[in-house]
């Protein structure tokens, strides 16, 4: 069963240049790349359509200048899109006034920034409590709430530190704690780990997955790192030149890229990282010895060791618990060594 949609955008446009709304109108609301170039306009977001479902991690992936940052700012209404619809929880919030947005932002949205955006004059505790302070929550209450989220991100004991006394990874933990303090429904993360060095980044990704397993938020996650995208995403939207090129699960993206641009990204991705049992299993239950059971959504990387070590086949069950196929050692080895027959 599909989960309900929390945020949706339809035909969203953001164009930079002279009088963008008039320009869009003149071109029937859908100017071509050529028309944009000729008019000297920059189409930062062009005709974007996405549906973000409750509880999923939706990753927007693109290189710098692809428009992903602009898109997330349009989704959070930090930037006002020039055309289209933006539907949050069933309401088109595009025409909302600043005052109306204030309320939505205060209670329902949280955002984590690339360069942390911590206030240098506030302590860790005060930073985490900042969104609550803005709402006028009394000190005792907001600090209690802030302490909870600080503990959640593993910074207990550093409440009185100032941001400049923390490492980059710790600073971003504060940023995460702050964005969670208001218990938002919709959580934006704008390249949250890009400014961190690779080891810390890995650690923070794990931390993020741990948090999400507990909190089950609806997440819009921006990154330029394809590895990060396939590691974290339920679904990925790949952007290029302001357009969304493809929206798919990591596995579908790798197995059937929409064009050469996407294929270029996926070419060097180890298949074991994205393929699930569902994609590689042979139909029907295994004949003979059964060494164990797996679920269709298990990724090869996660279960490869177990399958290899066992002598028998593994039965695969779908989400409802029915046995839908089986997987053996040979297929797994084909995938791990990169033999093409596997997928």
């Amino acid at each position, binding site marked *: 069963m599909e989960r309900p949609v929390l945020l949706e955008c339809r035909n969203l446009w953001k164009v930079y240049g002279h009088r963008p709304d008039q320009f869009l109108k003149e071109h029937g609301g859908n100017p071509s*790349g050529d028309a*944009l*170039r000729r008019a000297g306009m*920059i189409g*930062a977001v062009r005709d974007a359509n996405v549906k973000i479902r409750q509880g999923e991690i939706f990753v927007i992936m693109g290189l710098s*200048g*692809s428009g992903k940052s602009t898109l997330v*700012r349009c989704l*959070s209404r*930090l930037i006002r899109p020039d055309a289209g619809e933006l539907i949050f929880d069933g309401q088109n919030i595009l025409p909302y006034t600043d005052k109306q*947005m*204030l*309320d939505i*932002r*205060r209670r329902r*949205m*949280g*955002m984590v*920034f*690339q*360069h*942390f*955006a911590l*206030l*240098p*004059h*506030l302590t860790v505790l005060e930073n985490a409590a*900042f*969104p609550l*302070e*803005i*709402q006028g929550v009394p000190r005792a209450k907001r600090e209690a709430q802030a302490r909870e989220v600080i503990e959640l991100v593993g910074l207990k004991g550093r409440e*009185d*530190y*100032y941001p*400049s*006394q923390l490492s980059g990874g710790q600073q971003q933990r504060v940023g995460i704690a702050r964005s969670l303090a*208001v218990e938002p429904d919709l959580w*934006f993360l704008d390249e949250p780990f890009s400014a961190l060095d690779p080891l810390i980044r890995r650690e923070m990704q794990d931390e993020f997955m741990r948090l999400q397993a507990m909190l089950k938020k609806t997440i819009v996650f921006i990154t330029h790192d394809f590895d990060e995208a396939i590691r974290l995403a339920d679904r990925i939207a790949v952007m290029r*030149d*302001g357009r969304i090129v493809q929206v798919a699960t990591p596995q579908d993206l790798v197995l059937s890229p929409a064009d050469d641009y996407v294929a270029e990204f996926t070419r060097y991705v180890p298949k074991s990282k994205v393929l699930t049992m569902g994609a590689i299993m042979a139909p029907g239950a295994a004949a003979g010895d059964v060494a164990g059971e797996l679920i269709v959504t298990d990724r090869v990387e996660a279960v490869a060791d177990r399958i290899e070590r066992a002598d028998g086949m593994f039965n695969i069950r779908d989400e409802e618990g029915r046995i839908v196929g089986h997987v053996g050692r040979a297929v797994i080895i084909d995938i791990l060594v990169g033999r093409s027959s596997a997928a």
Partner: protein
Amino acid sequence: MSVSETSATPPAPRRWQGVPSVPGWAFWVVLLGVTWAASHYAMDIYKALDARWIIRFPAAWQPDFEGRISAGMKWLLEEAELFGILFRDVTRAIARLIEIPYDLAVDLLVTGVLQGQGQQAQQVLPPLSWIAVTYIFCALGHYAKGWRLAALMGACFLYLAVFGQWASAMLTLASVLIAVPLAAVGGLLLGILAFRVPMAERILRPVLDLMQTVPIFAYLVPILFMFGFGPVAALAATVIYAMPPMIRVTIVALRGVPEELGELGVMVGATSGQQMWKVLVPAARPTLMVGLNQVIMLTLNMVIIASMIGAGGLGYDVLTALRRLDIGGGVEAGLAIVVLAIALDRLSQAFSARTVTLRASQSRGGWAMRHRWLLSSLAVVLVTALIGLALPWVQTYPKAAVISTGQIWADAIGYINVNYFDTLDAIKTVLLTWVLLPVRQFFTGIPWPWGLAAITLIGARVGGWRLAALVFALTGLVVLTGLWTKAMMTVYLCGVSVVIASIIGIPIGILAARNEMSNRVVGVFIDTLQTLPSFVYLIPVVMLFRVGDFSAMIAIVAYALAPAVRYAAHGIRSVDPQIVEAGIVSGCTPWQMLRRIKLPIIAPELLLGLNQTVMLALSMLVITALVGTRDLGQEVYIALTKANVGQGIVAGLAVAFIAIIADRLLEAAARRMRNRAGGA
């Protein structure tokens, strides 16, 4: 974004240059030659053509700027009203607004609370004792940085007490204490307004530009006219003078807040007030504190200068000493200004650099521990006040223990004058005969029609026709006021001083950039030079060289030296180390490295330094009017003594125009140089 990345950037269109076909050197040589000829033969030309207007702009052609401005001011003051409120009442209200806190500060620091008038006045409450004031500043020093700063504060204030400058220094301090918050808060609010409302910025910017270039004295004239002679007028002038940098710094600081922090404010749902006061202003605090430091130093500078319109205090002591040629008294008061300036500068700098760790360590401990400096200060104030009732020396530093150095200074200067008079005089004579006088003759001889043409040609050459038009208009206005000769006098004195300041300053800057040690030594030296109020420079110069152009030149050079040094050092340090390494690998000697690699690279930087030097020189020029120059500065000074508003404003604007012309020309030249070097 991605679209433009692929297409190569088109070559920048060549600027329209006034004289495109002439090679660079030929243009300048010819221009100089013709100007020299025009200057030298101006008399002959005038006689040959029987056209006296060539050398003297006829009075009949001059619109009566002065009279009209004076009449306008008079009308403003006597008749102008807005919504039925007389302008005069507005100025009176402002005066009261300034006067009340000022009186309080003076009561607190100097006179104590008095009851009754004049001679019968009874002291109800004593002012803060010298011990209390010194202790409070020590406490501030410790709070801002640590024991060393506390010790420096103690030493500075003890100096003021021991050397008998206490009363004057406290009067000056009272003015600073009142003017700084007014200027800082006013500047902050106007800066915020300009940041938020683009229209406000468009109005403010040219006003700020003009205010930066109008000489200080020119402010004094209309303010004297509006507020009358006295401390209130001085404070009003001070606030107006110290505010523009704060406005600028505020705009820059708010713009400099990372965009993400602004977005954070929006995302957590901050109202626009919360966004400003809870996010942007606190995040911009470090930069704003730098602005505050500037405000404090400018305030001190102006409070000293404003002694001319009745501010009293140390500046007044210097002024009277200068007038009486009282060498000892002048040096004593001057040194007290230096000490006060250093104390205020270091303290405010320490506040702006206060580290997070320091703040964290100070926020530990119980209530009494955290507020120990505040509590102990209050205790010291109370205790010294009580004991002071019984033992007067606790309240006021005893006269008997004052050490006067006046005689020592007078003797020292006397000794130098007696023993080295010949040497000093020879230096003076050589420079006068071979540099100052010929240059003066050259500049003052230039007939105005050719001067106007030449400056327009230069404008066209370095910046295109727009700049040429601007330069022509501004110079034309100066001509119309009939101040051409005085303006040329200004250009001459300022020009010579700037050249000498560059000759001295640039090598020092290059030297400073060589290593860390020399950098620190030069840094301290330059910082101190810049901290001193401009007035102070006059004292030793007048003592050694008496009045005249030469003394003025020395004072200007000393005052305007700092930017030349600073920009040269900064330029050398910012040369790409890879280029330096490339030079080393190619086998450059250190001298070749400097001449062939570093100097050409930093040339635009040097021009900008030159620009700053010119600005400082022009602002100092007006102060040197006190030692008897005969340029526009003198004109402003005369206007001030006669309270002639029109004359003051016209001459002040003329100086401002010269400053604007110099600024735009040098900026255009620096830009041209950078473009040629291939920088974007």
